[in-house]
């Protein structure tokens, strides 16, 4: 019984971390049809922001939940204004430019912080479940992810800003005719996606540590989750995270962590072949 509980918590954590690293990308891709290959670096910058902030004496929770999203969100706004907005409608060029940005950011951060892993220890310690121990921080990450997804859903569904965002996403010309500025909505959306990525990177920093090329470890997982999920931002991300999280946990359990990731990626490639529109292209079509 205890073992089942521990395994369930691990699987939930795998699902939550997948959803966490993907949600920023999902918002940017789903809303704006922009493939942001610098997404991994946004996560990396979130991690560094949190660590630098705590070193300057800011409370760890404030650093992770407030400072990191603000810093990375601001960076996202700058990137959108100086780079992305010139490339709307040119998907391939956007991919290339953001890949350039990704390399550039890796180089820049390596120059500033050096090519070493920095970390902060995970707070809150452990907890006993029968004969097993589990980290309380993992449970907190699961809870924060659930809250975050709920907050995004509420915002998109019930607020004016969410309405603007969804309207612009569906038909930018019509939104413009009704007096909205799609350019502003895009800038805010990109900034929000970047802020979510910053938050995710900061939350995962105590677990994995941070180093300049950590984005590469995240990027493939984030992409398969978003593309596997399909058009609906939230239900797609949750469905794909649940599927791939479980696949990853089972295959890691049966082989090694590295091959667990490999099997998950391979499963994702097969899924994209079977469901080119993603999970929400076939199921949960009315989701958000």
């Amino acid at each position, binding site marked *: 019984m205890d073992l089942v509980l521990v395994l369930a918590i691990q699987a939930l954590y795998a699902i939550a971390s997948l959803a966490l690293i993907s949600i920023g990308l999902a918002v940017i891709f789903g809303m704006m049809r922009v*493939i942001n290959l610098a997404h991994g670096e946004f996560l990396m910058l979130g991690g560094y922001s949190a660590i630098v902030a705590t070193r300057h004496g800011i409370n760890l929770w404030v650093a992770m939940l407030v400072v990191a999203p603000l810093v990375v969100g601001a960076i996202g706004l700058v990137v959108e204004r100086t780079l992305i907005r010139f490339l709307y409608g040119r998907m391939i060029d956007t991919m290339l430019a953001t890949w350039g940005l990704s390399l550039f*950011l890796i*180089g820049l951060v390596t120059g500033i912080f050096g090519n070493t892993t920095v970390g902060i220890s995970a707070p809150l310690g452990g907890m006993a479940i029968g004969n097993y121990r589990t980290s309380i921080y993992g449970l907190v990450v699961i809870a924060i992810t659930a809250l975050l997804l709920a907050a995004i859903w509420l915002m998109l569904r019930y607020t004016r800003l969410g309405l603007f965002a969804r309207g612009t996403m569906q038909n930018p010309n019509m939104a413009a005719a009704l007096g909205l500025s799609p350019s502003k909505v895009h800038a805010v959306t990109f900034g929000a996606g970047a802020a979510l990525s910053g938050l995710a990177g900061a939350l995962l920093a105590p677990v994995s540590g941070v180093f300049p090329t950590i984005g590469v470890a995240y990027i493939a997982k984030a992409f*398969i989750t978003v593309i596997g999920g399909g058009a609906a931002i939230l239900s797609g991300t949750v469905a794909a995270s649940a599927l791939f999280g479980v696949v990853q946990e089972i295959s890691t359990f049966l082989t*090694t962590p590295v091959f667990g990731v490999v099997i998950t990626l391979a499963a994702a490639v097969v899924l*994209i*072949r079977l469901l080119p529109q993603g999970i929400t292209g076939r199921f949960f079509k009315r989701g958000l």
Partner: protein
Amino acid sequence: VSARSRDLLGLALAGAIGLAAAVALPRLLELSALLDVTVYLIMSILALSLALVWGYGGILCFGQSAFFGLGAYAYAIAVFNIGDSTLPAALAIVLPAAFAALLGYFMFYGRISDVYLGVITLTVTLILFNSVNSTAGPEYRIGTAPLGGFNGIPAIPPLNLPGDPQAALGLDDLFYLAIVLLMATYFGLRWLLASRFGRVMVAIRENEQRAEFLGYDSRLYKLATFTIGGGLAGLAGCLFANWGAFVSPTIFGLGQSAQIIIWVIVGGRGTLIGPVVGCILIQWLTAYLGSGQLAQSGGLTQLKASLSRMLGPAVGDAFSSVLGIVDLSNTSLVLGAVLLAFVLLVPKGIVPTLLDVVRRPARAGLRAAGDVGHGKPRRAA
């Protein structure tokens, strides 16, 4: 000058440059410099493989390094097991081509859109990188060849004359082999592009739907293009494994894939000579910056001094504090900046942009005579 004679002129020029390089470089350069040139030539073959797949086939493959790495590993593993290098060299081309065919079948016959194609090729590259990287233990071996994991495979035997393992190729022989194969690849691709197959391929790139309405199965043509590109990348991988007598999983890495794309975009899509130029230019640039010669030459100090003189000392100080953070010997920083700059400012690449500049006076003359100008401007070929 008619288009046809310009084509022939270009071919003759490319052949002449290649021959001149093959004759002159070994006489002019020391062996170490010749080795540097050899790797430029090998990478140029790799650049040509993506020039075909992306520049002419319109298939943006983010994982060309997967086929490059597979070729290198196939050669290394087979040559350890077999000894004579003839079959391993063939395997280094056939295996990546077969893998490209499999992956291509999966993607093109699934009618996956461009963007997803990019993500899938990227993911496959990462799968290969992760798998090979984690095979460090002695239990991972194929035949007599240990896979070596993140340590790579050292001391790979060089190519030899077919059937005679004793007659191994020396380092200067590898230069000749590389330049001959590069020229063969270049002229072979020119021939392919001039053939019916090549014309259909470009037609599909320009307008896939229209080509299908005309009765061409775009899936098959894309698959064939992708497979040829995979085989060429494998050939480059085989030569690369020979060049350093060493392979490691980093050749599967994203950094390697990014470089190939940068060569093509810098040189220019839709040309063959462009990616070769881009490849040599970028490799030379990263080698130059990486060796720190720029800092030693004092050019930066002079630049700072002249900035201070012209714009005030504050600008000069700002320049040196930026240099304190921005390490120009850092490859990814420079490559990232180059990629960004080209996508935003020179999206066509160097060679097509230069050609436009050369041809513009002629076209302007025509426009003045009222010859051109019905509706939309013509697309550059």
